[in-house]
């Protein structure tokens, strides 16, 4: 800034930004890769003026100073171009001369990221690291009274049920009289949660689907994946692989025209239908696919015009009460597949979850309840929704489970937990903790993006630009120049890696607890926590 330059309220210096780019002039080759790759154009070619002292050899000429010009990288300070910390520049730099660093204090950008009165919108996750799940320990170790099992050699049956499980008496009575029984799927307890075709790129989708198909067909692991609210590619709908897919219907009904028309041509039934009433990242808010990502393909699958933002309403417009939602919508979705496909609602974690659950218990068709806690991630949402709205999953799932126990319906309506599972990388430990609190299974989204595709996002606000289609890894972009970076086969390989290692870790948790023949749902005597209030709240042991 020149001495007589003007400053505006939003004039920021590099110091005010959340990420500061360190660049080493000595090692830079000026190749330009970093500026080319930066998804938000935070850096540009910089022309710097420099004063140098030149001394000649000998005594004839006095030393003097000269002004010279050199070239390098300049970080922009305009809030619209602030560095997001993705560090793609470091990834592509041949000489390792550039890297973004997190500022050493709270940034000032956060006060200016609402230019034009538009609050910040972003993708990613709640920017709060840590959580209660990582504090839960598995304390009931089988010692001399009962032998611990061998995780490597024992026979394990770690499957779960998705579907309305009838009480034993009722089940046998209906079986005897050949009555209709709700369809039940036996699936792997770790589900790839809803990430829509549109929110994530075609290569990412293909990779996930390939990975899931491989796990099912080659490794015999009944892993399931939810489509999210964006429809399903026509070829997949008509393939045998649709049985590994949970079709999601949400308030925008995107893609359902295509799905309904495909029903007569479907070779297999889908695994289930998930009715999305809410999600953890933006509770009480509808889905949002910003116009950047609505290209021709996405528009065609969703049945909408290209290039327009697609906000789904916060609620299903045809429903005005829970009775409507639960009774009519669940039943009509059942009807679509001749009552052969389980249909269940997914809601945001909320203090009203018990009311929803109690309604479901009285509806014989409700196949499950999925709850997405406050740590759920998303492709796009308002920052305030993501950071401040929602209910933590642990107590929500525990309350629901204990409520079912009171009603004697535990596991008859399986509960699926999501939102922050594996947030700190401890996927199996978090999943097992939730299962022992009462979940029948868990759903993951962000974890699979990080582990299977190398998503750069973190809880300290790194990257988080999934919403504008500029994902530098090509995971959440619809721009072929970006998503070509992602090899679907490699994604599939990583999906398989994730599930295999999860399976081993889960066995390493349940085997020492003496469990192998069934998933230890609600085995709350096995867990403890070093936090008295949390222990009381979750009705588990307090251990120090």
């Amino acid at each position: 800034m020149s001495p007589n330059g003007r400053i505006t309220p939003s004039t920021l210096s590099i110091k005010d930004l959340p990420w500061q780019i360190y660049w080493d002039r000595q090692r830079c080759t000026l190749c330009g890769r970093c500026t080319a790759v930066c998804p938000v154009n935070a850096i540009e070619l910089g022309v710097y003026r420099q004063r140098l002292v030149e001394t000649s050899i000998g005594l004839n000429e006095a030393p003097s100073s000269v002004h010279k010009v050199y070239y390098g990288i300049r970080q922009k300070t305009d809030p619209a171009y602030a560095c997001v910390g993705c560090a793609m520049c470091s990834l592509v730099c041949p000489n390792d001369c550039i890297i973004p660093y997190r500022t050493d204090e709270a940034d000032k950008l956060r006060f200016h990221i609402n230019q034009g009165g538009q609050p910040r919108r972003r993708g990613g996750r709640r920017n709060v690291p840590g959580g209660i799940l990582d504090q839960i320990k598995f304390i009931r170790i089988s010692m001399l009274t009962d032998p611990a099992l061998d995780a490597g050699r024992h026979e394990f049956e770690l499957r779960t049920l998705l579907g309305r499980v009838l009480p034993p008496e009722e089940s046998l009575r209906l079986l005897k009289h050949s009555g209709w029984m709700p369809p039940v799927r036996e699936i792997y307890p770790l589900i790839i949660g809803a990430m829509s075709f549109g929110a994530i790129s075609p290569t990412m989708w293909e990779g996930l689907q390939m990975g899931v198909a491989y796990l099912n067909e080659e490794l015999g692991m009944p892993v399931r994946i939810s489509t999210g609210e964006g429809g399903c590619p026509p070829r997949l709908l008509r393939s045998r692989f649709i049985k590994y897919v949970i079709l999601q219907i949400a308030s925008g009904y995107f893609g359902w025209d295509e799905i309904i028309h495909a029903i007569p041509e479907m070779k297999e039934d889908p695994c289930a239908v998930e009715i999305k009433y809410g999600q953890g990242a933006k509770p009480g808010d509808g889905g949002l696919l910003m116009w950047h990502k609505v290209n021709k393909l996405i528009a065609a699958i969703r049945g909408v015009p290209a290039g327009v933002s697609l906000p789904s309403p916060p609620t299903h417009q045809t429903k005005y009460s829970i009775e409507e939602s639960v009774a009519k919508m669940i039943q009509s979705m059942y009807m679509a597949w001749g009552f052969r496909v389980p249909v269940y609602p997914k809601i945001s974690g909320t203090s009203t979850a018990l009311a929803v659950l109690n309604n479901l218990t009285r509806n014989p068709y409700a196949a499950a309840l999925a709850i997405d806690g406050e740590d759920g991630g998303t492709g796009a949402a308002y920052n305030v929704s993501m950071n401040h709205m929602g209910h933590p999953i642990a107590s929500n799932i525990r309350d629901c489970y204990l409520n079912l126990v009171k009603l004697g319906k535990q596991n008859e309506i399986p509960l699926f937990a999501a939102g922050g599972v594996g947030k700190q990388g401890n996927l199996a430990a978090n999943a097992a903790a939730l299962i022992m609190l009462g979940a029948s299974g868990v759903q993951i989204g962000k974890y699979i993006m990080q582990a299977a595709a190398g998503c750069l996002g973190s809880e300290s606000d790194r990257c988080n630009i999934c919403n504008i289609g500029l994902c530098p890894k090509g995971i959440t972009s619809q721009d072929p120049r970006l998503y070509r970076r992602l090899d679907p086969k490699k994604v599939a390989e990583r999906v398989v890696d994730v599930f295999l290692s999860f399976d081993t870790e889960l066995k390493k948790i349940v085997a020492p607890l003496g469990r192998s023949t069934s998933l230890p749902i609600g085995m709350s005597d096995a867990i403890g926590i070093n936090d008295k209030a949390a222990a009381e709240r979750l009705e588990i042991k307090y251990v120090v």
Partner: protein
Amino acid sequence: MCRLLAVTSKEPQSPMLAMQALDVMREGHDGSGVGLFLSDLAGPFQELNGAPILSGIFTNAGMKRLDEFMMEVGFLTKYKLSIKVGKSPPKGTPRRDMYLIQAYEYPQTWEELSENEVHHRLMLIRLQLRQMGNEKEDMIVFSFWPDVIMIKEIGDPLTVAEYLHLDRDELRARVMLVQGRQNTNYEINLYACHPFFIQGVATMTNGENTAFVPIREFLMSRGFPGYIGYQSDSEVFTHILHFMLTRLGLGIEAYKHVITPLTNEDLERHPNGPFLKHLKHSCRRLIIDGPNCVMGCLPDKTLFMVQDRKKLRPGVVGGKLGLYAICSEMCGLDAVIPDRDRTKDFQPMYLDTAFIRPARKELSICRQTEELPLPH
């Protein structure tokens, strides 16, 4: 690990036979307690024509309260065996006022009741007495059922048996379950001692039940008043069996399909595959995870033994025509039936249910992979 023995004999036997066998297996239990279940009774208790027998431990005050209570309900004493003991009990055994085994005439008002209703009321009376006893700590009630006597006490099995003079003629029976306790709790609660009993079903178990909490939650939420207690994680085995027999109408052959269902691969090959898959799904909350060996007696006096899916506990069954025994250890079996054909001894593995029907003619083995006899 506790030691267990179940005997079924055509000729009435003294409980001392079982106690001596427990003593042979002394290395396997710490002498911290003994539990005894007698059925198919001989002697005076055989002549009772289905009159219910109350078994328990009472203080003098408790006896008084019991008599008042039973009078009020309309029960009249038909036969009474009260075991009064000396002033100095063996080491570790508490001093009790009275061990009571008392048979009652049904109240007149019960005559018109259905069998199910009578059974239900008998159980409720037992629960009510237990509740009364808990309040004033003056009674401990083990069973109230026709043709069933139960005695439990803290201490070394053989010493306690001698102290209580269990060799008396009145106590001979054709079916016996007995447990020698290995204590894993500091304080011994007699309600935590095996065998457990509910409406004619008795079982006792070896080992820890790692799936105890979810199973207990399931049973307690059935709305059935008898599914309470659970001072021991093994009590759920009795209640699961009772649930299966009474609520699901299935036979003992299905017990393992409830507590340790087959893998999906096995179910696909099974003649009753679809049925068993439904059973597995709807009874998923009753799946045990071992390590457990369960022995028990059904209402029709069939004795049985099953192992958990991993078969991590010992158990052997053997015998001869008219006399069979199921036991934790071979040496216990030898003590009861030394002259049997040992080559016919059988150690059930993870798929087997071994049982001896009341005729005591043979040992039957039902493998889980075999076709299931289903009710029509």
